[in-house]
């Protein structure tokens, strides 16, 4: 147990982080290409139409993975922000900062694909349904978080502010996940994936969906690692430039 904990905190050292991630990034890229292309081709071309929704069910292979990531990236940011506030590890702060634009794109994509899917199935692009509303608020929190980093220069105070914003926003991320259960109303259905096999969608849709989700998760990990590396290098460059100019 002690060894395990020690290993996790090794990532807090930027040198260790760069050394380890340099080795694993090519594997992430290969896994992303394989799982995402297989999942999308399987889902689009080799699954049947749903008996109620027709072929529009094929939107599930982009809508569910992006919505899943939109919520879980925010939770990842929540955890790394808490680590920053408690232990002051810069890599964890950089991880949250680097993940935010990816989370924003995933949230936007989930809302867009949901609206496109909603028109033929619900008869409307948008409704103030609990899940849709909490998702739009989550999008606002992503925009707010990114804006803080885009408009202000790095300081511990700004890092704390962004971390607190992230912690407050995590309530809406939680609401986005459980909104359907909290308020038993609205147009949005319950979870498409569940640990309970009875609640799951049919296997014929389930396995390509699982593959697509794995593909999107690997895509997120690849982009995250590259963005963290870039951010660490950018900070090093800024330090070198500032010490070189004095």
């Amino acid at each position, binding site marked *: 147990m002690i060894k395990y904990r020690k290993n996790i905190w090794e990532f807090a050292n930027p040198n260790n982080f760069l050394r380890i991630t340099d080795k694993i990034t090519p594997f992430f890229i290969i896994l992303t290409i394989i799982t995402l292309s297989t999942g999308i081709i399987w889902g689009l071309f080799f699954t049947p139409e749903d008996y109620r929704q027709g072929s529009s069910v094929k939107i599930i292979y982009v809508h569910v993975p992006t919505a899943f990531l939109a919520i879980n990236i925010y939770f990842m940011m929540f955890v790394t922000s808490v680590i920053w506030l408690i232990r002051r590890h810069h890599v964890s702060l950089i991880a949250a900062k680097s993940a935010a634009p990816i989370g924003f794109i995933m949230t936007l*994509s989930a809302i*867009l*694909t949901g609206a496109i899917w909603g028109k033929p199935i619900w008869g409307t692009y948008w409704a103030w349904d609990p899940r849709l509303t909490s998702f739009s608020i989550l999008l606002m929190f992503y925009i707010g978080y990114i804006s803080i980093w885009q408009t202000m220069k790095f300081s511990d105070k700004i890092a704390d502010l962004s971390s607190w914003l992230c912690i407050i926003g995590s309530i809406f991320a939680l609401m986005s996940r459980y909104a359907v259960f909290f308020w038993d109303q609205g147009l949005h259905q319950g979870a498409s994936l569940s640990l309970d096999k009875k609640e799951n969608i049919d296997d014929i849709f389930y396995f390509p969906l699982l593959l697509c989700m794995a593909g999107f998760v690997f895509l997120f990990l690849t982009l995250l690692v590259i963005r963290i590396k870039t951010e660490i*290098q950018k900070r090093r460059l800024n330090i070198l430039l500032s010490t070189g100019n004095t």
Partner: protein
Amino acid sequence: MILDFGKYSLEILFSYLSTFSLILILVISTYLNSKKVKKDLDKFKNKDPNDSKKSQSI
């Protein structure tokens, strides 16, 4: 046609196109940003080492 998914072809194509366009923007911006920072860092490291010594002595 290979991209004919029946009644909801347009909706399906719009969903996939919008998602992958957004992801492409993210991938390209991540790649370009990483290249730029790497290039700047290499440029700084390959600069005449006397420059930094000079500035430090100042």
